[in-house]
């Protein structure tokens, strides 16, 4: 368990905000410390990892020397973070971003492929700022040696690449050559820029600073505003929805279209505990929800790229599907631990890679087929390979649905007969039959129909416990699971059906805490000691389920309460401690933000239907 000393050296997870360029992200604390960055890609080794080891991990901090108070926001409709430090002698603004720009612009000008810009601007008075740069490449396994190249900045070899820090303040390299620092005074109206870039090509592009850097900031903001302007959502809670959309976009890996579950590893689900996982990969279980979120907000291009990645990645293991893949579709994501890092607030081990990739998880078949069905607009969408792929998936589901699996939550205990997995097998076959009927795909639908109907009989007979009045986590079981609230979402059952209404009630009673929702009972054997927080997305599933069932007022109330658990810049982690409201687990979490978007879309649809009915009645 963490000591007091441990906890005090780490910022609360909710104190972090994220910047990124759709290839990688950086976490920046409320105190201006860049504590997490993996370059050049999400799953590359870290350059800064103070969030996982405050002493060894490395950081790049800019903060007032004395006491201060910080206020933060994202510049409207962008992923540029602005932190304003209020010190007794004045205030200063720090803008952080990873510049992005259009492909046309990249063809016109040499631009660093990976860059973080930190722009300091005095607002009032005169503030003394301490700048400290301490890179620790390769998860702090590699000795960093800084080299001052004068006008060209401070350089640090990272193994395959080089870090270049340029700034218009005289940064001095410390005696040990492992860090650089300076204290400066910033007056109102004065500006300083710092550019940190990475290159694995020689010659490296050394970005210009000063006015040229500020122009990159403006171009980047303009790019984000133009991108956000494509959002078609005009319903309630638009600000939260747009922030979730922007956070989700940061987790899209632009070169392949993949979307990572979260850009961090080993932020603990229990402080001081061992539930620390690497989420810098792509989980198929998120596919259908993510596509609905993207298409629901008008982002067909991103949805198509994601669907393309799904079809590409899964072909490597087809007809069997893994539960997760690397950002380029890698099938082997070997798990190991970093024993030299103490972990966030002493939460060890720190893991890289994810051993869950080898688990059997039957629900992914339903997720993938449902996602493909959502993206299909015409018969032309399906080439011969895709039809063979779908037929193979259908046959695999028919062969395997009677077997136990690890279920959506991938516990590291023995496989079981999870009700949710069986239902998702039903979804896979049901969507395949739909695709055959709509587009005339040549699929083995006779067998699919037989097995689909058999699954429904099995789920209704053994997956619903009449004694407790609820669908249950496992067949013939009596424990509950929040994933059962997604059954109406997939069209398996109407949300107003008595069985789902009573399931919603029972799950809420057993797993709900003030709008938040645990994913399963605390005494469920998942291979670890109990003690995790409420699972972020589950609360939003309950909102969705309730709204679909017609309980719009209660659903809206719950939704508003859940939004209150976001941090000051609108970001959610994987889990939330219901007692303290603290964030737990990897951060920010794509699945939770997808939950925000989908629940808002359902509430908005419910509101417009209610309004339409009202108009008809009044008419």
């Amino acid at each position, binding site marked *: 368990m963490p000591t007091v000393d441990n906890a005090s050296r780490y910022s609360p997870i909710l104190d972090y905000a994220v910047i990124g360029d759709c290839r990688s992200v950086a976490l920046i604390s409320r105190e201006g410390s860049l504590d997490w960055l993996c370059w050049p890609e999400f799953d590359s080794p870290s350059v800064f990892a103070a969030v996982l080891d405050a002493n060894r991990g490395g950081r790049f901090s800019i903060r007032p020397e004395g006491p201060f108070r910080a206020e933060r926001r994202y510049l409207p409709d962008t992923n540029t973070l602005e932190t304003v430090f209020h010190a007794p002698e004045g205030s200063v603004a720090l803008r952080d971003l990873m510049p992005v720009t259009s492909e046309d612009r990249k063809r*016109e000008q*040499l631009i660093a492929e990976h860059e973080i810009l930190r722009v300091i601007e005095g607002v009032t008075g005169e503030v003394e700022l301490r700048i400290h740069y301490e890179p620790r490449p390769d998860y702090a396994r590699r000795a960093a040696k800084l080299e001052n190249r004068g006008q060209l900045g401070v350089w640090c070899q990272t193994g395959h690449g080089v870090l270049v820090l340029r700034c218009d303040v005289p940064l001095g390299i410390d005696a040990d050559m492992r860090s650089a620092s300076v204290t400066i005074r910033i007056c109102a109206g004065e500006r300083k820029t710092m550019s940190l870039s990475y290159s694995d090509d*020689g010659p490296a592009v050394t*970005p210009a600073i000063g006015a040229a850097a500020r122009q990159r900031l403006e171009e980047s903001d303009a790019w984000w505003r133009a991108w956000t302007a494509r959002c078609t959502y005009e319903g309630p809670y638009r600000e939260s929805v747009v922030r979730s959309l922007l956070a989700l976009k940061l987790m899209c890996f632009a070169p392949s279209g993949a979307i990572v579950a979260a850009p961090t590893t080993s932020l603990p689900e229990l402080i001081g505990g061992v539930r620390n996982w690497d989420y810098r990969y792509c989980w198929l279980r998120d596919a259908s929800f993510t596509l609905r979120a993207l298409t629901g907000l008008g982002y067909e291009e991103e949805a198509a790229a994601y669907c393309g990645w799904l079809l590409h990645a899964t072909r490597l293991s087809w007809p069997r599907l893994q539960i997760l893949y690397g950002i380029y579709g890698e099938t082997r994501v070997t798990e190991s631990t970093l024993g030299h890092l103490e972990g966030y607030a002493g939460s060890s081990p720190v893991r890289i890679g994810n051993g869950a990739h080898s688990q059997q998880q039957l629900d992914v078949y339903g997720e993938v087929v449902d996602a493909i069905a959502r993206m299909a607009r015409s018969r032309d969408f399906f080439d011969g390979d895709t039809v063979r792929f779908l037929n193979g998936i259908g046959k695999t589901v028919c062969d395997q649905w009677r077997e136990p699996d690890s279920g959506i939550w991938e516990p590291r205990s023995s496989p079981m007969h999870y009700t949710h997995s069986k239902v998702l097998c039903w979804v896979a076959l049901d969507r395949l039959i739909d695709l055959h009927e709509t587009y005339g795909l040549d699929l083995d639908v006779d067998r699919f129909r037989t097995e689909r109907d058999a699954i429904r009989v099995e789920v209704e007979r053994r997956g619903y416990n009449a004694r407790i009045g609820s669908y249950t986590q496992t067949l013939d079981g009596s424990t509950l699971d929040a994933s059962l609230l997604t059954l109406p979402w997939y069209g398996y059952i109407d949300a107003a059906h008595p069985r789902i209404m009573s399931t919603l009630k029972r799950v809420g009673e057993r797993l709900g805490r003030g709008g938040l929702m645990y994913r399963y009972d605390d005494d469920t054997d998942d291979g670890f000691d109990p003690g995790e927080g409420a699972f972020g997305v589950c609360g939003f599933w309950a909102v969705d389920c309730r709204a679909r069932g017609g309980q719009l007022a209660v659903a809206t109330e719950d939704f508003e309460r859940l939004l209150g658990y976001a941090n000051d810049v609108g970001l959610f982690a994987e889990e939330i401690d219901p007692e303290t409201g603290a964030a737990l687990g990897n951060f920010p979490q794509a699945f939770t933000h997808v939950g925000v978007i989908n629940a808002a879309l359902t509430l908005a649809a419910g509101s417009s239907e209610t309004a339409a009915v009202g108009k008809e009645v009044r008419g």
Partner: protein
Amino acid sequence: MNIRGTALWGFVATMVLTGLLSASQQVGLTRMNIPFMLGTMTTPDRDRAKLFGFLLHAMNGWIFAVVYAAAFQSWRRATWWLGAAIGLVHGLFVLAVAMPLLPSMHPRMASEEHGPTPTRQLEPPGFLALNYGRRTPVSVLAAHLVYGGIIGAFYRLRG
């Protein structure tokens, strides 16, 4: 001079040299990417720069192969070790003379003395191209030894 032999083995040797330098970059011996370095003389577009740079590099490889062939013809003998010896001199020339001159020839390269500007942002190679990694000279010399060795081993003297 054996023009066909020069063209064929010059091309093969250039491809092997490019492959060796690229492999050196992939395994972390050097960051030096010659197609990128040459291509950015003609365009700021990264992708096009790598393509143009590759073509320029191939052209250079052929031109140097003519010099190698001329040396073999004048000595009336061509062996792998003679080719490798010319490759060694060639590699040393590239590292010690051509690389330090590059910032004055390359329109997008900054120099050690003058910091990067919005139009000259590329990192200069420095003495022996050491800025691109401490083992860059080893990679460059090894690649040129192999380049020369291939031409020397397979070139057939004319006349």
